[in-house]
């Protein structure tokens, strides 16, 4: 049986937001538009004919870019806003984790806020009393529960909000990105709880940008693009298609940004230093076929090429390179001195290329340091974090580097490799 039925749902927003700031009774009366202003003007089409069912007990993932209509859809499912056209039928009690702790009052204690928030979410005081201990225990707030909520950290606030919402004991749970703000130790606990819900046969609709989690917990995924369902199916298949689409799009954007960065002198200043007796310019990245590229697969070949110009002849120079991940961790660094190249001479214009046969990095954004300096470290030209590239792949392994590896099992252990799960 379907727990959720969505049929041809459209949602249009009136686009009078900019005009609205100036909308006053006077202007409305002067222009005789008192009611006209409340009519449909230009409209933004947030959802354009969305239909799907969710079987009771299934977990549906919803992915898509920002502004694609995911959150609008969830708000309609939650009954917060109404569809402009189409129907939504839901069976059972719904709890929506859209904003945790909405209705918390900062001046009063966690204990009292549990009751207030619980009643707001549709429980009776008696029901809350029964679940009170469980709520506090799950939120790990036993010691702080009588302190006013304003003294809570954002993590504590979020934990309490999650704990109340999850204890509403819904038949249908709607989750919108709320776990993105949680502290590292609490998020797995939330996911455990969500998994427990799945085991108990509850229906879950999970909106997130965290594709790995989506793949792990969902039975099915829909990808929403510009208000329409672009694709629906097995999580792995939809997530891969989505990643590919995002990758292609980012590549275009990155190419454009790359051009901008080189002309922006202001940014160059703080990210670049050195005496400039030797100068580095025109840093570019290429794939194995010599095609300029800034989005790579995990094990793709990568070449970094840059022009150098020595304004006078130099005999003491070292070329260096550093690769950093999004957290600023140095994944790899090396220079010509460390690799035993003895500098002899540089003069005039030249070109340097570093080729990596297989990148061996996990998904993420990476930044480059590129420098030319003397053996003692005296910088000629140091470019810090000026260049970036992205690794987007369907591999889900984690860490800093993708160490080459293979699995082996003795005969009595049987595993089957899913080539295309």
């Amino acid at each position, binding site marked *: 049986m379907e727990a959720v039925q969505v049929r041809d749902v459209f949602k249009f927003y009136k686009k009078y937001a900019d005009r609205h700031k100036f909308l006053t009774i006077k202007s409305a009366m002067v222009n005789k538009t008192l009611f006209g202003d409340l009519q449909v003007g230009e409209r933004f089409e947030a959802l354009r004919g969305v239909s799907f069912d969710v079987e009771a007990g299934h977990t549906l993932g919803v992915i898509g870019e920002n502004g694609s209509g995911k959150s609008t859809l969830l708000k309609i499912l939650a009954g917060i806003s109404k569809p402009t056209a189409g129907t939504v039928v839901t069976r059972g009690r719904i709890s929506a984790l859209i904003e945790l702790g909405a209705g918390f009052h900062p001046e009063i204690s966690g204990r*009292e806020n549990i009751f207030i928030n619980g009643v707001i979410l549709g429980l009776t005081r008696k029901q809350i009393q029964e679940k009170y201990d469980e709520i506090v225990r799950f939120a790990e707030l036993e010691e702080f529960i009588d302190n006013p909520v304003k003294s809570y950290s954002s993590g504590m606030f979020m934990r309490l909000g999650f704990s109340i919402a999850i204890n509403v004991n819904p038949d249908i749970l709607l989750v919108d990105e709320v776990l993105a703000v949680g502290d590292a130790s609490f998020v797995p606990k939330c996911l455990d709880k969500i998994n427990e819900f799945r085991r108990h046969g509850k229906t879950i609709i999970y909106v997130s940008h965290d594709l790995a989690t989506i793949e792990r917990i969902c039975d099915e995924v829909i990808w929403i693009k510009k208000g329409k369902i672009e694709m629906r199916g097995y999580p792995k298949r939809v997530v891969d298609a989505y990643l590919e689409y995002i990758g292609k799009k980012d590549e275009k954007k990155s190419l454009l940004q790359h051009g901008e960065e080189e002309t922006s002198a202001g940014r160059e200043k703080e990210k670049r230093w050195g005496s400039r007796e030797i100068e580095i310019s025109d840093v570019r990245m290429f794939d194995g076929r010599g095609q300029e590229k800034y989005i790579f697969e995990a094990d793709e070949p990568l070449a970094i090429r840059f022009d150098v110009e020595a304004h006078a002849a130099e005999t003491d120079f070292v070329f260096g390179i550093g690769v950093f991940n999004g957290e600023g961790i140095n994944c790899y660094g090396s220079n010509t001195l460390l690799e035993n190249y003895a500098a002899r001479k540089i003069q005039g214009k030249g070109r340097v290329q570093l080729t990596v046969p297989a990148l061996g990095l996990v998904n993420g954004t990476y930044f480059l340091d590129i420098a030319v300096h003397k053996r003692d470290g005296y910088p000629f030209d140091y470019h810090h974090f000026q260049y970036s590239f992205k690794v987007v792949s369907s591999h889900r392994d984690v860490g800093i580097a993708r160490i080459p590896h293979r699995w082996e099992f003795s005969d009595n252990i049987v595993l089957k490799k899913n080539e295309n799960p």
Partner: protein
Amino acid sequence: MIEKLKEIVRHRELIFTLVSRELKARYRGTVLGFLWSLFNPLLLMLVYTVVFGFIVGGGRVSGFESTKFYALFLFNGILPWTWFSSSMLESANVLSVQGALIKKIKFPIEVLPIMVVTTNMVHFLLGLPVLVFFFILFGKALTPWVLFLPVSLLAQYIFTMGLCFLVSALTVHFKDIKDILSNLLTLWFFATPIIYTYQSVPKALQYVLNLNPMTHIIESYHYSFYFGSLPHYKRFAITIVVGLLFFYLGYLIFDKLRDTFVEEV
């Protein structure tokens, strides 16, 4: 409409919880707590007593036995007026202040203006013992007509509620209602017999005052406390009918605009 009223009654636990949240939050943040909600009416009473009793009147207010009694009369009217005007001003903000509830949770929005009017009613009720205290202090006797209070209370609640539905709903679309409202309330205050008696107004002007529902509501408090007699029941009955009409219209418009709140708040 009956269905809608039942719906509101079904939310009584939520209303109760939200009102107690408001009260707790207001009284917890400050040391003097509940005294602060009395501060404003007391100040008004003091100012008008000084101005009309001592500066203009030179120790006597015409129509009153003593300045003390004038102060009593003032406080008698200012207390319910404060309930009315605070409710109006707060309901102009309540939907945007509580925006998170509207936008992020499936929430019966009509509960918010109800919360405002009810919270302010509780402040008013907490002020009543102070009023009684002043009656005893100044040596003016109270009569059994004080028992008329619940009827006045109900009439004021219904009328205020209707206006607050209207104000809270319209402010979402017309932000300048807030500015108009505070000026309007100042005018309205003087157009209601609070700092003067209804009887002291010339006949012609009394007709104008009669058009103001707050006149009869405040008068009913004056009668049951200060004058110690039955209010003018015909006018009061009409006021109740008018109040119900306002309640109905206010709720109707609120309900009509309800779906726009999520997007406009």
